């Protein structure tokens, strides 16, 4: 007998089979174009960073940030819509499927999406000669962890808000600055001192550090386990918040 969590995951995968063509462009083609223009184009002017070509330097950053974007994007309108428009969560809640099953199945789905995306991206960047360490195969794992760390709290947020206009604020004031200042395009040390701790608070920076260490064989800013633990804390905290938010929404 299939576990309810697996049944929830299956629904998402069935839906994805229907919609994947539209999402491939945003989640994969776009980062590759990005890499070409910034990595190769801008890289020509910048020269080397930290002893490697600019392209090789930003590959792990773009990889993590595309996982970040995907996990965040998937957790906004689709979650809001499953409460508001399709009422799919209400449908599931009327069966033996519980709120923790709904959320575990959803997190597994996000994890799979992010992992697959990161693996394909890794393959392409290998062709560019941008990977300098065999540890690079671990980078998708860091992306997967980041995906859950970001998706869990945003899923909770999407379950809490009464109107989808809050997502615009989330993208403008949280997601965009995170992407710009989390060490994706330039080292954190370039930031004014007061801004550094703010950038470090973002889960993205920690995943970028882990990915960069993996693809370049370099050292991380903090011990690697600490970066991973920080991401896990976001994932666990976000999950707990999401369980509460879903219960409030579905079981009042």
């Amino acid at each position: 007998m299939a576990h309810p969590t697996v049944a929830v995951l299956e629904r998402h995968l069935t839906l994805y089979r229907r919609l994947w063509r539209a999402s491939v462009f945003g989640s994969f083609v776009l980062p590759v174009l990005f890499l070409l223009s910034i990595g190769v184009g801008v890289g020509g002017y910048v020269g080397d960073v930290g002893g490697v070509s600019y392209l090789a330097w930003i590959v792990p950053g773009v990889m993590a940030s595309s996982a970040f974007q995907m996990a965040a994007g998937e957790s906004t309108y689709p979650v809001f819509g499953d409460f508001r428009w399709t009422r799919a969560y209400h449908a599931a809640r009327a069966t033996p499927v519980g709120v923790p099953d709904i959320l575990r199945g959803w997190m597994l789905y996000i994890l799979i999406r992010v992992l697959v995306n990161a693996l394909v991206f890794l393959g392409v960047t290998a062709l560019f000669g941008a990977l300098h360490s065999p540890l690079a195969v671990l980078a998708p794992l860091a992306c997967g962890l980041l995906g859950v760390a970001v998706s869990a709290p945003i899923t909770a947020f999407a379950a809490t808000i009464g109107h989808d206009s809050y997502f615009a604020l989330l993208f403008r004031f949280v997601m965009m600055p995170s992407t710009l200042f989390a060490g994706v395009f330039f080292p954190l040390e370039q930031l004014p001192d007061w801004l550094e701790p703010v950038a470090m608070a973002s889960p993205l920076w920690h995943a970028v550090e882990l990915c960069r260490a993996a693809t370049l064989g370099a050292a991380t800013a903090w011990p690697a386990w600490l970066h991973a633990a920080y991401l896990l804390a976001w994932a666990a905290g976000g999950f707990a918040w999401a369980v509460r938010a879903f219960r409030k929404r579905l079981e009042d």
Partner: protein
Amino acid sequence: MIYARGLVKRFGDFTAVDGIDLEVAPGEAFGFLGPNGAGKSSTMRMISCVSLPTAGELRILGMDPARDGTRIRGRLGVCPQLDTLDPDLNVRENLTTYARYFGISRAEARRRADELLEFARLTEKAASPVEPLSGGMKRRLTIARALVNEPDLVLLDEPTTGLDPQARHLLWERLFRLKQRGTTLVLTTHYMDEAEQLCDRLVVMDGGRIVAEGSPRSLIETYSTPEVVELRFGLEELDGYAGKLEGIGERLDVLPDRILLYAPDGDGAAAEVHRRGVNPSSVLVRRSSLEDVFLHLTGRTLVD
């Protein structure tokens, strides 16, 4: 199947269900009849074990929703008031995906989907997306989906609201088939004819309370008369006529647009109206219905 004593549901300060007692036996078709806001859906949500009672005792299939919610839900079929179909899945996938929520194997899910598509008369639409389906088809699909786990108890919250008469009749006919198979049905409605068609027994709800209980026939017998005469008088004030009609039949109700006379013999009452020199613009003698029961119990018409 269902046992409730003093069931209460509050949302903050607001009491949506205000202490109701219920018992539903296996094989019964039981109805909640009441206007919007009566507390029907709130009650159904408690019975379907998604919302817990604020107070009172509730047992479903002999179990306690607070403790055995998951096991109970595994044996219920729920057709909620608002559709919860997956618009991006096709008709068939809506059934199979949902079947998996009950731990049904993929092969068995496919088999049941075929059977239920047949039952819901949707076999030709199996590969169609949900969005272009008519309201009646969506509702039938929702009901088919509620049957995918072969439930012991089927809960239907306003199954035909918003459907055109033809779609309603087809749906009634399908629900009647279920009833004949011995499935226990619990449904809510604000349509009198629906309650009369489908329910063996029903309760009339108003303002979170049960104001009457019985079979459609016994409710009509207790709270109304066998026949009702409807009198309409163009645009004039109706209160003036009420005095002149006093004493005809057993009771009289003045509505904004018509006067109702409750009488065992409608034709006799109508003749008496003319004999008293009152000349309505139209006179209609009809059998009494649950609408009259509701009006009598609450002083209000049901659908406004």
